[in-house]
């Protein structure tokens, strides 16, 4: 089975892109499964089911969604292997723009949209910088110039990536993307021992443990302050 991790800012079009690409994979006779990681709520699992793609969903609730992802991806992979998928797609939103739930030697795709603003590529951290493939969506509604400026911004942050334009609505570009998602040579039978491409942010402070009161005396653990004077 191939595992592909797909992430990107909320509403960038991840699910739409995956569904269109999955359709092309299925046309090739490949069995596709999906897992959707989100924070509080998602209906995307219904969209997958409707498209005939077996899906599992995981909501992190009050936990850091990326930590939740790492703690669960192995079990989900085991499920995918049991189901005999050729491709298992894991979809997760990069909620604080700092993380990349990418795993070494596992294909990593970042989905980002043209409407998100010209400085967005620079604001997104490893999620964009460490992706193998960057998919840019919503290109049909902005001008050619804006598409080029945006792609140049992505390129400056991640020059090594394959940068593609995919339209999640019409599916333009999805066939091409699908050809990059399955690779005979990238089959895995476990995730055990694999490593994240980058460490997740560390945070362990009183607020992680349920503190709600505001004030210096309630702050304990890993706390950092804005430097107001020299800001």
């Amino acid at each position: 089975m191939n595992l592909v991790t797909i992430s990107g800012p909320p509403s960038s079009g991840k699910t739409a892109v995956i569904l269109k690409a999955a359709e092309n994979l299925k046309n090739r006779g490949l069995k596709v499964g999906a897992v959707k990681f989100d924070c509080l709520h998602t209906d995307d699992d219904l969209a997958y089911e409707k498209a005939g793609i077996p899906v599992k969903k995981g909501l992190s609730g009050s936990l850091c969604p990326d930590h939740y992802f790492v703690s669960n991806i192995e079990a989900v992979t085991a499920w995918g292997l049991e189901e005999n998928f050729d491709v298992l797609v894991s979809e997760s939103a990069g909620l604080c723009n700092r993380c990349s739930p990418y795993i070494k030697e596992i294909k990593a795709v970042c989905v980002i949209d043209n409407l998100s603003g010209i400085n967005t590529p620079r604001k997104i951290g490893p999620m964009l910088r460490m992706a193998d493939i960057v998919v840019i969506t919503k290109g049909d509604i902005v001008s050619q110039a804006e598409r080029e400026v945006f792609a140049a911004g992505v390129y400056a942050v991640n020059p090594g990536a394959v940068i593609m334009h995919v339209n999640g609505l019409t599916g333009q570009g999805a066939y091409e993307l699908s050809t990059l998602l399955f690779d005979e040579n990238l089959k895995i039978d476990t995730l055990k021992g694999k490593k994240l491409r980058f460490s997740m942010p560390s945070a362990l402070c009183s607020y992680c443990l349920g503190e709600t009161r505001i004030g210096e005396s309630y702050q304990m653990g890993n706390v950092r302050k804005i430097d107001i004077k020299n800001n």
Partner: protein
Amino acid sequence: MTQREILQHSPQSLIEKYPFLSSFFEGQHWMTKFNPNQPLAELFSLIDEEQAEDHAFDMHDFLDQLMDFIAEMQAFIGKESFVVNKLTILPGTNKSGENEGFEKLEFEPRTITSIVGPTGSGKSRLLADIEWVAQGDTPTKRKILINEELPDNAWRFSGNRKLVAQLSQNMNFVMDLSVKDFLELHAKSRMVTDSGALINKIISYANELAGEKFSPDTAITALSGGQSRALMIADTALLSQSPVVLIDEIENAGIDRKKALEILTGEDKIVLMATHDPLLALMADQRIVIKKGGIHSVIKTSAEERALMAELEKADLKQQQIRTALRSGAVLQYKMNV
């Protein structure tokens, strides 16, 4: 430059050597804390674990990306190998698996090809095949050659070098910038230095295309439909790096369509135009007829068709004049001289 040599350079000296690196360094947040005149090797020794973690910095990744960026940019700037003098499509099959109705389809710069066929007949697939420089590996099994050779993989995978630029009716400007700032930003992303004259040219072309003029200080989001389309066309003609321009209809209102095509072909573009409009279809040198997901036939525009086009142009002109007259409050007469 080898990795070892790069380590001896400071960010500042690298920018002097490769000006295009400024956009790359701008994205490196960790650098802002350091003296840009210090060699990279020294900078790396100064960055502590906490800073590295904060900025998600990894020395090896950084060096790999820096080397990649320099290598690709040099290829991009220095060489003529990305000039397209001829684009060729070799036939594949339609949805029913039947062979397409042509031997070899060639496009040269400064020519216009229209694409006609019912909605859903496979126009998008044709465009996608060109954009992806298909090598028999798409559902149509078509093959695309560039300059009569197998194309460089960079056309497919590079983020900075796309074969096809697109203009469609659904497109809008979404950035909150003046026309001038917007064009400067586009020029900068293309590494065009000294873009002033080029920007003026784009604005004057756009103003020729749109009936109503706008100034360089107009916000792009405040442009009318016709003005936006005019600016998009002029900008694509002069600033887009893509040698092929695909147009998905040009609306009739508020823009001089013939001149728009002249501007694009004047800038050595290969123009492909999907249209249902007879006038536009006949303005092309040739037209591709698409049916059932495949190219059914390729027709050169005949002299007879050109004569017919002249008639259509007259009618089109008359309609435009009536529109202008109505807008200015005129009362129309049955017989109008055009």
